[in-house]
């Protein structure tokens, strides 16, 4: 038997270990968006507030933007909200709101209490527009490029680390 064959079990172990190391440390609950690098889906939502426009596909063209899916009943949304407020205050990037499966009065009260960081807000009480976007848990945040394509999706509350390490560099690059 050739000597080299003795190393085969070790090699096999190394391969399996490498696969498991990658597979088991990834967060399996977070899915990549199927719409990544695709144009934003076609949808048209009425405004949530009387003094702010609603949201349709055509509104997401021409500038780099964030689309934030939120709801008043969603607890993690409350957690990420101060960060969104700060971004709007710093004029980092326009943030568009997609109010998902929420009651109009509840969402308005929520924004009145915590502040409104959004430049426009679409109201999606049935969740149908959310399904078009592949939304499965709020909050979700999408980065949209100038051409109206989805370039990044973050599921769950936006953390400062994700923002500074991933989202802001991406925005900077998309703006070039």
């Amino acid at each position, binding site marked *: 038997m050739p000597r080299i064959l003795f190393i085969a079990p070790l090699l096999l172990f190394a391969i399996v270990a490498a696969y498991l190391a990658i597979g088991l440390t990834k967060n*399996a609950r977070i*899915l990549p968006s*199927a719409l990544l690098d695709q144009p934003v*889906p076609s949808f048209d939502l009425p405004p949530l507030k009387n003094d702010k426009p609603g949201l349709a596909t055509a509104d997401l063209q021409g500038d780099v933007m964030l689309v934030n899916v939120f709801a008043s009943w969603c607890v993690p949304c409350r957690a990420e909200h101060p960060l969104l407020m700060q971004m709007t205050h710093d004029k980092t990037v326009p943030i568009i709101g997609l109010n998902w499966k929420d009651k109009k009065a509840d969402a308005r009260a929520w924004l009145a209490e915590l502040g409104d960081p959004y430049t426009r807000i679409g109201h999606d009480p049935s*969740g149908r527009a959310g399904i078009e*976007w592949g939304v*499965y*848990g709020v909050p979700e945040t999408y980065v949209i490029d100038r051409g109206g394509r989805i370039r990044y999706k973050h599921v769950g509350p936006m953390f400062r680390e994700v923002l500074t390490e991933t989202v802001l560099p991406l925005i900077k690059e998309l703006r070039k």
Partner: protein
Amino acid sequence: MIVRLAALLILFVLIRTGESHAVQPDERLADPMLEARARDISKGVRCLVCQNQSIDDSNADLAKDLRILLRERLTAGDSDQKIRDFLVARYGDFVLLKPPMKASTYALWFGPLVILVLAIIGLIVFFRRRAALDTTSSGAASLNTEERARLATLLDGKAGDDKGNPA
């Protein structure tokens, strides 16, 4: 009459509670053929919120929305495949509980089979080699002429050294 109706109602409720799926009565389609197709599709669609349940089993809000959505599409005349494609386009292959057969999933589908075949080949080689080793080490054919001569001398009982030389 009222008693009978009540009994029937109780019986109906008892039967109904025996079912474990999450489909609500108001979601069902009037057409039993379409409803059967809807059930069939939704059993293969993953609930993205609970992830190890189908939307047919899940009580999650999104699962209910997807059940209603696919029933609407069925009623509108979409084929089963078209509805699955619609969901995959938005949520990715992960939304299907059974992974589709395509280039990127060949390793998943055929990997175990390849490993099994390799293992069987390995075993065959191993046993063949061992069998070959057995016949060469214990068989008479392995003695050369000189050794046979020595053996014959020893068996003849004649005294001599172990090199076969007579005393």
